[in-house]
């Protein structure tokens, strides 16, 4: 099939249908609304169900209901809407139900703005709900990757019985670029789904042992960390400086890194595809004599930098300095990244960690 210009949100919504999503519930919010607008009529065509919930809170709980029946269920939102889903996400993880939550990230605290951003990184990777669960967090850098990755999002969620957070910058949902859609898969029901017959004897809350579960949880998370780190890297083995950046911001940073290479700077680039588990393994390949690791981020305070500093500490022998370049919102311009890099190379920027 030839690639066609498609809007990110629409391509993602259609991909969801093709990957077997048969339930959507949510509440509109810019810049994610087109996903639910599309599914509001599309799911009906494939025998799925769609509910416009009265709120995000209710929406995620409807998803819990559908997921408990073993159906591929989806909800999407942005900004404050995702905050309202946190109790539900924690519950999905606790009940070992799998689902995908799409966050088309918009900028700002509180009501915020509609600008595209990466401002929810720490929340999505650490969990904004009660307890210490983790969600697998995928961050696509193009509409094509988003569309391809949605199947993986469900496969991983179901393999480990966790939630996958699909974390994309708002701009990815609003922009268009050429896309090839995946084929339809056959829909199936997860074996643990309710059927009214008590076929799968789900353990009740009063029969649970938190201490044992904590151990099992750690093992599960360790397995995910070991098996599911995903990233792309380039030119890091001989680099003086390595950029780390994901999503559309990572794409722009890749452009900056390549231009800098051409201009004679020995820079490399790591693009995390999974934000959790964070690609620690990528850091093991970095030139041991690297002078610094630099994050490029679209938020106000620098968030990715924490994982980068932790990965640096863990993977590298020396205490390599790490720098954060937070561009607040939008997609940082290649020119700006290059200029700011030069400042770092010249020692004009203080390290973050």
């Amino acid at each position: 099939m030839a690639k066609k210009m498609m809007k990110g949100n629409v391509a993602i919504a259609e991909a969801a249908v093709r990957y077997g999503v048969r339930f959507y519930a949510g509440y509109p919010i810019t810049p994610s609304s087109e996903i639910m607008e599309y599914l509001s009529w599309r799911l009906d065509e494939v025998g799925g169900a769609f509910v416009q919930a009265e709120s995000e809170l209710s929406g995620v709980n409807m998803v819990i209901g559908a997921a408990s029946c073993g159906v591929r269920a989806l909800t999407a939102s942005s900004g404050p809407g995702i905050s309202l889903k946190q109790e539900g996400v924690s519950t999905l993880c606790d009940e070992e139900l799998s689902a995908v939550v799409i966050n088309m990230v918009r900028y700002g605290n509180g009501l915020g703005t509609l600008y595209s951003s990466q401002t929810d990184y720490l929340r999505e990777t650490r969990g904004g709900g009660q307890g210490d669960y983790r969600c697998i967090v995928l961050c696509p850098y193009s509409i094509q990757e988003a569309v391809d990755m949605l199947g993986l999002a469900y496969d991983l969620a179901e393999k480990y019985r966790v939630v996958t957070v699909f974390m994309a910058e708002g701009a990815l949902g609003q922009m268009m670029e050429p896309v090839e859609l995946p084929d339809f898969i056959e829909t199936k029901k997860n074996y643990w789904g309710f059927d009214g017959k008590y076929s799968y004897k789900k353990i009740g809350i009063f029969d649970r042992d938190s201490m044992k579960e904590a151990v099992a949880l750690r093992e599960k998370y360790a397995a995910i960390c070991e098996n599911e780190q995903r990233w792309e890297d380039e030119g890091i083995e001989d680099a003086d400086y390595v950029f780390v950046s994901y999503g559309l911001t990572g794409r722009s940073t890749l452009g900056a890194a390549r231009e800098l290479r051409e201009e004679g700077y020995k820079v490399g680039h790591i693009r995390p595809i999974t934000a959790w588990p964070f690609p620690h393994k990528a850091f093991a390949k970095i030139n041991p004599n690297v002078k610094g690791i630099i994050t490029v981020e679209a938020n106000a305070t620098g968030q990715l930098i924490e994982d980068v500093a932790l990965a640096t500490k863990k993977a590298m022998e020396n205490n390599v300095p790490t720098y954060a370049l937070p561009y607040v919102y939008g997609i940082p311009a290649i020119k700006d990244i290059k200029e700011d890099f030069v400042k770092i190379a010249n020692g004009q920027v203080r390290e973050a960690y």
Partner: protein
Amino acid sequence: MAVERKVPAIIDKPMNFCPGCGHGIIIRLIGECLTELGQDQNVIYAIGVGCSSNLGGGLEADRLHCCHGRAAAVATGMKRVNKENIVLTYQGDGDAYCIGIAESLNAAYRNENITVITINNTNFGMTGGQMSVTTMEGQKTSTSKLGRNCDVTGFPMKFPEMVASQFNVAYAARGSVDKPQNIIKLKAYIKNAIEAQMNGEGYSIVEVLSPCPINWGMTPSQSMEHIRDVVMPYFPIGVLKERGEKA
């Protein structure tokens, strides 16, 4: 000649309620109705948080412990993807009418084809007897030490009346466990509610007046009298919306 009566198999595990708590009676009635309607092997429960959660321990059936207040939304998701199953919520007054009012109301509003059972014991039993929207005027609770002042906290909420009068629901009723005669009536309400769902008529709700001896500071028998003397006059039992009745 005696008629055999036995606790239905799907709930035949000891449950963790206080002595004289009404929950046990209600749960048994639901089990009886499901069995008699041939649905006991075809049911999914969305269980609220509160003393109702204890149901989870006694039940041999598909069941999910929902976030506090959200059972009606969870049940919506369940029913929309499993249309053949009977989907029931089992919730307290605090769960369904306080924190969960939006989800409870909107399920009724959409006339979602589910059955909602709410246990109204006029307080938050599990967490230490705080005031609820169903707490009676003047009732002392741990957050209304001097007795509930309805002028600033509102008058006890009649949710079934609300949805019966405002929305296009299939069936609504209120029962009580205070005495055998009312328990028998209550069973008929629950049966109707489940039948409504089986026929795809839409949303059905049965609220049950139930005692909370421990937080009311009464003996079980006193609690039943309290229901009759104080609670029921304000919360009348009976069918509030008959099946087939026009909105």
